C-alpha cells in the first residue's frame, strides 16, 4: 500500500516542514510497543 507513489512529483510543502518532535514522539511510542510485547512474551515463556 505504502508503495503507491503516484505521479505527484510537485515539491511537497510537508517535506520542508520540521517534524522532528513528531518523529521522536512516535519512536518513543514504538519502543514502548516493542518492549511491552517482549515483556508479555517473556512472561508467557516463563509460565
Amino acid at each position, binding site marked *: 500500500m*505504502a508503495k*503507491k*507513489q*503516484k505521479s*505527484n512529483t510537485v515539491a*511537497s510543502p*510537508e*517535506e520542508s*516542514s520540521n*517534524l*522532528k518532535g*513528531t*518523529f521522536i514522539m*512516535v*519512536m518513543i511510542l*514504538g519502543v514502548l*510497543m*516493542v518492549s511491552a*510485547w517482549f515483556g508479555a*512474551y517473556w512472561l*508467557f515463556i*516463563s*509460565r
Partner: protein
Amino acid sequence: MHLHKYEKVWLTFGMASLVIFLLIIGFAAFWKGTHPQSHLETIDQNNVEAHDSFKPENLGLTEVADGKYKVNIVASAFNYDFGVDKDEKAVKTIRVPQGSTVLFTITSKDVVHGFQVAGTNVNMMVEPGHISRYEAVMKNKGEFTIVCNEYCGIGHHQMFGKVEVY
C-alpha cells in the same frame, strides 16, 4: 499520495515490529507446535461418558509415564468433575510434581465454560460438543487456582478447583 520521510521511517519501523512479532509467534506455533488450544475433536454432549476420556472411572489425574500425567475433566454448570478419591469424595485438588508434563482434556455437558489454571498458560474455552485439550509443563511450584473464566450462568463464580505443584 505523499508521505513525509519521517512517517516512512516510522511506518517501516512499526510494520517491521509487527512482522517480527508474527515471525516469533508463527515459528513457535507452526514449528514448535505451541498453537493456542484448538483440538478439533467433537463429541455428543448429551452422552459424554461414551468417550473413553470421560468415563467416570477415567476422570481426574492419572500418571501415564514417569513425569507424564493426564487430567480428564467434565464441566457442567457449576462444577468441574475431577472424579472421586478412595473415600468416594469428589476430587477438587490435583497434585503433580514440579516439572511434570500434564495433558488436560475437558468437555462440557451443558453450556459454554472456561478452564484456566490461573498463573499458568493453561487457558481454554470449553464448549458443548467439543473436546478441549492442552498439554503444559508445570514449570513453577505453587498453588494455582482453577477458575471457570467464561460466563456460564449465575453460579459461574462458584466453579473452581486447584492445582498444587510440589
